[in-house]
């Protein structure tokens, strides 16, 4: 076990250096770099790419993973979706992974502060808040202010998770004082409460409303412009499969990847 790890470490060093250089290059270049990969003699990719990604990326990344495996036969993309914070904790705790895609710069910073990434993380999409409410919007909600109406049960994400931090930012920007019935542990929790009609509204991301497939209705509100969340993606320093990982990041940032992500409700970076 340890011996094989050491061997991969040794081979990884040059790969890591190359990765840093490439990341630096790709970070400088504009976003149209990766679509013309076909006419470069790319090395044959193989093996498993392990991607840790924020839960909100589940649908789009799963689709992109399938696309990647089609483009590079012999590769396999294995995902672990979860709260950005716990994924960051996994990485700093030494979990072997190639790519980390977080739902906020703050959670990415947990990893970069520990020098666990190769190069600078790049923002690949942005996400905007929406009010999720019961289908048909029976409460006629149209702004954050409407959520303060008495008798209305509103849930927010807890301040400690990205969607909650963003909601607080929007509330502050709109000078709205809102007391919810619950500060949920993650977006899914907040959404479930509305889906089951236990809460009348929740402040979640546009992509979450989309992913609920009509079980909730989305209401856009102006203050959400003040709390747009950037999603950074980065190659990890000790990536066991750096070459394939870089190719996956390139796919995410390519026009095709952006199309899939826009389809899920994300905004362009």
């Amino acid at each position: 076990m340890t011996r094989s790890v050491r061997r991969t470490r040794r081979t990884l060093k040059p790969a890591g250096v190359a990765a840093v250089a490439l990341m630096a290059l790709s970070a400088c270049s504009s976003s149209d770099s990766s679509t013309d990969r076909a006419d470069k003699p790319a090395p044959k990719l193989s093996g498993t790419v392990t991607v840790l990604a924020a839960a909100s990326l589940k649908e789009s990344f799963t689709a992109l993973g399938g696309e990647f495996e089609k483009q590079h036969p012999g590769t396999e993309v294995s995902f672990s979706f979860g709260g950005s914070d716990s994924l960051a904790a996994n990485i700093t705790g030494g979990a072997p992974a190639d790519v980390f895609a977080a739902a906020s710069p703050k959670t990415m910073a947990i990893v970069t502060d520990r020098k666990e990434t190769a190069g600078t993380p790049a923002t690949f999409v942005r996400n905007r808040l929406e009010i999720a409410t019961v289908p048909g919007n029976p409460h006629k909600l149209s702004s954050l202010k409407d959520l303060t109406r008495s008798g209305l049960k509103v849930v927010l994400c807890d301040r400690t998770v990205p969607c909650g931090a963003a909601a607080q930012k929007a509330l502050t920007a709109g000078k709205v004082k809102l007391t919810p019935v619950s500060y949920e542990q993650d977006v899914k929790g907040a959404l479930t409460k509305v889906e089951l009609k236990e809460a009348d509204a929740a402040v979640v991301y546009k992509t979450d409303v989309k992913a609920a497939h009509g079980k909730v209705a989305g209401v856009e509100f102006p203050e959400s412009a003040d709390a747009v969340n950037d999603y950074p993606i980065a190659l990890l320093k000790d990536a066991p499969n750096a070459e394939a990982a870089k190719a996956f990041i390139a796919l995410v940032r390519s026009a095709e990847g952006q199309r899939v992500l826009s389809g899920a409700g994300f905004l362009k970076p």
Partner: protein
Amino acid sequence: MTPLDEPGAAAGPRTRRPGHLRAGTGGRRGVPLPLLLPGLLALAFLLLPLLALLVRAPWRSLPEELTSMEVWQALELSLVTATAATAVCLVLGVPLAWLLARTDFPGRGLVRALVTLPLVLPPVVGGVALLLALGRNGVIGKWLDSWFGITLPFTTAGVVVAEAFVALPFLVISVEGTLRAADPRYEEAATTLGASRFTAFRRVTLPLIAPGVAAGAVLAWARALGEFGATITFAGNFPGRTQTMPLAVYLALQNDPEAAVSLSLVLLTVSIAVLAGLRDRWTTTS
């Protein structure tokens, strides 16, 4: 730290030796190695993570972590709800255990299996199930809301319901086991002497199985105290109303791991103190 061995189930009026790790009474003193090694390994496995918590605890910042209002709010709520949930479990669980142990009805085995289901159900799923049953739009909750104006989600009562739901099986199983081990002839003797079945239960059976009931109650209380998944799913998370200690710990872990460790220590200390206090109480009364 004293190893918290499980309170003995049926404790007759025998003299107990003080909690000494001495195997075998009289006869051969030797402890067989195949038992000793795995046993010590198990003990280490249980205690080392807790020791790690102690070693890595932010002792310096502990005082200021613990003076925040939210911590005490969460702790108080935890203790109150866990105790209330245990009371609910006792009132409902002991009769159910008696029915399972002392009556014969078709499908009893199935009922017993169903009672244990919440034990294997992921707590979050339990929480969703509770929402579907007792939520504002739930199968029963709808009527509760329209007839009595009672809504359980997002209330302290909801926390108690969630905790009781996961803790009840512990109590039922442990009391039922005690009842099966208890000699039914005492009750029969009482009924032949003219006591009604309920009187026999109250005056004969209950005192007989009291230690088992107490053990079950402690298990249920400990389980309720640590309950996270069902609580946050059914009752949500609002400081002072539904934010119990495990919820506070989990959310602190998201952005301040040190605070989470401090909170965990508080919970650990309180539960050890309570359990140790209870154990002393029982070992002296018999």
